[in-house]
């Protein structure tokens, strides 16, 4: 299969050239590629801020940057990573590309709205970048009032507007996914024959639709208060800053499940394909995605335990926070059980899946620490919480994201990634990650507060270890950027089903044609039935 043959066949990549064919495309696959480029840039930007933070924290005294700059660094790092990288990461790239193909549809329900979602993310990102260039924002990614409304004199409004617009991108993506799954499945593709990746993205869509509007209106109220001093959150006029925290976290906890659920969907695919076995307890794993999405809306008060919230509410939210942990436990155990008596291959995506299950378990279990009222009083707003959420977000979602990128790379680009380099970078990432964030658990329990530009000298050794880990991690992330770009030109040509996977997306040539399927597939087999793996599609 020489590269020449590849050029002739028209597929979604060479079906039209030039800027206009990309910027006005309605093809869900092209929009996915646009998203992929956008969020990689935001990830790099957020990563640069993270590296500067880690460099600053090498010394106890705040001597690399001024405290104003440091405050802007971690704020921009948090805002860009959460709103412009992690929330769109899996749903907007792999979700957009593969959800329609997995259920046998030609495209999403509303392609024009799908393109609008991308433009909204770009517009929102534009505002955030403008705010950053013009002087940055220093309120933390949580924008707590009254600091964000009255005392901060940085570009709060521009950043809030950026997040407001990007929020609608997330809402419309969620809406698109929900309608597509309900109305556009191929004949025979009942709900229980759908791949678990589709279940996870469906549940994520539900959260995006129900949660994001609340932060949108909260940002509008912050905007009004900052411009008109109207007092909804201003204590001097009788407003209550804790009300802002309630409205902010009503969205922001479900938002963390927006970030992790699609990643869990990817892991279900990887674990099944690379152990060549149907997922153990398919209905339980499918249901736990929806359960996490729903119960995720009942627990936001666990971010307010010491914020002045009443003790009674603390009891209620701590109790419900433990409810939300059970579906995650069910998922982890079912993934591990799938490996039993499987035929396990060590391809890079599977290494990332192993990494995800291990690190998500550690991250999730530390979530149980901070959900316990007695412990959270001591560790809230310390590096313990930083370690908890980096374990589940960076050790979890980013690892699953990279696993998914490598898994579907041959299908998206028609090229295979270099296996050797991929395994090396996975190792760098796993080692670098643990060296960066495990010391932060110890720092946190010692009492090192978060968002500190200077700290007492006795914490220095752990900070230096964490920064050393961050450099290894940075190398780990830069490697894929290089060899994946390299593989576009020089990578070996991939077949239509290099992994022998069962999804409908593998029943199309790599890269797939614009209309996905010549004939609408009829689904007769159960999900993950490895006796009926779609055979190599002969390239015409």
């Amino acid at each position, binding site marked *: 299969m020489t590269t020449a043959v590849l050029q002739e066949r028209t597929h979604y990549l060479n079906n039209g050239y030039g800027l206009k064919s990309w910027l006005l495309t309605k093809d869900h696959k092209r929009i996915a590629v646009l998203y992929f480029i956008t969020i990689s840039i935001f990830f790099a930007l957020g990563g640069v801020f993270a590296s500067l933070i880690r460099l600053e924290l090498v010394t106890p005294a705040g001597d690399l940057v001024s405290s104003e700059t440091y405050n802007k660094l971690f704020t921009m790092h948090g805002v860009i990573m959460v709103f412009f990288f992690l929330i769109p990461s899996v749903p907007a790239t792999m979700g957009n590309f593969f959800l329609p193909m997995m259920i046998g*549809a030609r495209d999403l329900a509303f392609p024009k709205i799908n393109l609008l979602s991308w433009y909204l993310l770009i517009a929102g990102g534009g505002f955030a970048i403008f705010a950053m260039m013009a002087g940055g924002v220093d309120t933390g990614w949580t924008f707590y009032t009254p600091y964000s409304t009255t005392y901060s004199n940085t570009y709060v409004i521009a950043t809030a507007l950026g997040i407001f617009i990007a929020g609608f991108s997330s809402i419309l993506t969620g809406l698109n996914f929900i309608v597509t799954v*309900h*109305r*556009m*499945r*191929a*004949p*025979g*593709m*009942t*709900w*229980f024959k759908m791949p678990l990746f589709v279940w996870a993205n469906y549940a994520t869509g539900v959260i995006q639709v129900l949660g994001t509007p609340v932060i949108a209106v909260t940002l509008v109220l912050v905007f009004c208060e900052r411009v008109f001093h109207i007092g909804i959150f201003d204590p001097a006029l009788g407003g209550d800053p804790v009300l802002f925290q309630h409205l902010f976290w009503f969205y922001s906890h479900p938002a963390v499940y927006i970030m992790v659920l699609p990643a869990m969907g990817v892991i279900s695919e990887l674990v099944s394909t690379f152990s060549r076995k149907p997922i153990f307890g398919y*209905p339980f794993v499918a249901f736990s995605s929806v359960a996490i999405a*729903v*119960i995720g809306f*009942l627990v936001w008060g666990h971010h307010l335990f010491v914020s002045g919230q009443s*003790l*009674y509410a603390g*009891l*209620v939210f701590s*109790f*419900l926070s433990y*409810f939300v942990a059970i579906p995650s436990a069910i998922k982890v155990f079912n993934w591990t059980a799938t490996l039993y008596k499987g035929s396990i291959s060590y391809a890079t995506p599977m290494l990332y899946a192993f990494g995800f299950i291990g690190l998500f378990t550690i991250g999730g279990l530390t979530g149980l620490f901070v959900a316990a009222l007695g412990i959270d009083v001591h560790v809230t707003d310390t590096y313990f919480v930083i370690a908890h959420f980096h374990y589940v977000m960076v050790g979890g979602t980013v690892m699953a994201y990279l696993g998914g990128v490598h898994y579907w790379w041959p299908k998206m680009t028609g090229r295979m990634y270099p296996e050797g380099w991929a395994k090396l970078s996975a190792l760098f990432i796993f080692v670098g990650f643990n060296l960066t964030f495990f010391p932060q658990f110890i720092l946190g329990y010692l009492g090192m507060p978060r968002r500190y530009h200077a700290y007492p000298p006795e914490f220095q050794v752990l900070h230096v270890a964490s920064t050393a880990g961050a450099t290894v991690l940075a190398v780990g992330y830069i490697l894929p950027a290089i060899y994946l770009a390299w593989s576009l030109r020089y990578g070996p040509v991939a077949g239509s089903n290099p992994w022998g996977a069962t999804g409908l997306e593998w029943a199309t040539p790599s890269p797939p044609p614009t209309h996905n399927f010549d*004939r*609408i597939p*009829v689904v*007769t087999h159960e999900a993950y039935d490895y006796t009926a793996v779609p055979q190599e599609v002969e390239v015409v």
Partner: protein
Amino acid sequence: MAENKETRHTQPDLSKPEMRHEHADVNVWAIGKLAIALILVTIASVFLMFGVFRFLEVRENALQPPPSPVVSLDSRKQPPEPRLLQNEPENLQEMRAAEDQLLNSYGWADGEHKAVRIPIDRAMDLLLQRGLPSRLQPTTKSAKGPSK
């Protein structure tokens, strides 16, 4: 999640457009029941917390030192004199201030406004000038200047 009853043996006739996508949707009735169950569990846990709150409160109150009898009095009244000093340094400091005030100020020394109180320094100067009403031995002249 029961999907539509008849299992699909025959191949759908793809020529007709309606047959080109799956119609079996989610069993809304089952989800409705789940939603109701979720609401009940949430409300139940909110009230369960009421029980936990009461239980912890009773347990905690038991550990508290018994309140001193004085406190049980109606807080509007204070026990009769003499009372324990609650804040010794404060009381000591106030007593000294009161004494200084008495010693260094002008004022009526008695109710009938006959005798006057004058600051101690002033009194000492006057005493020096007037000399002490010494007993009859004229010989011991006061060491200091002439008596007035």
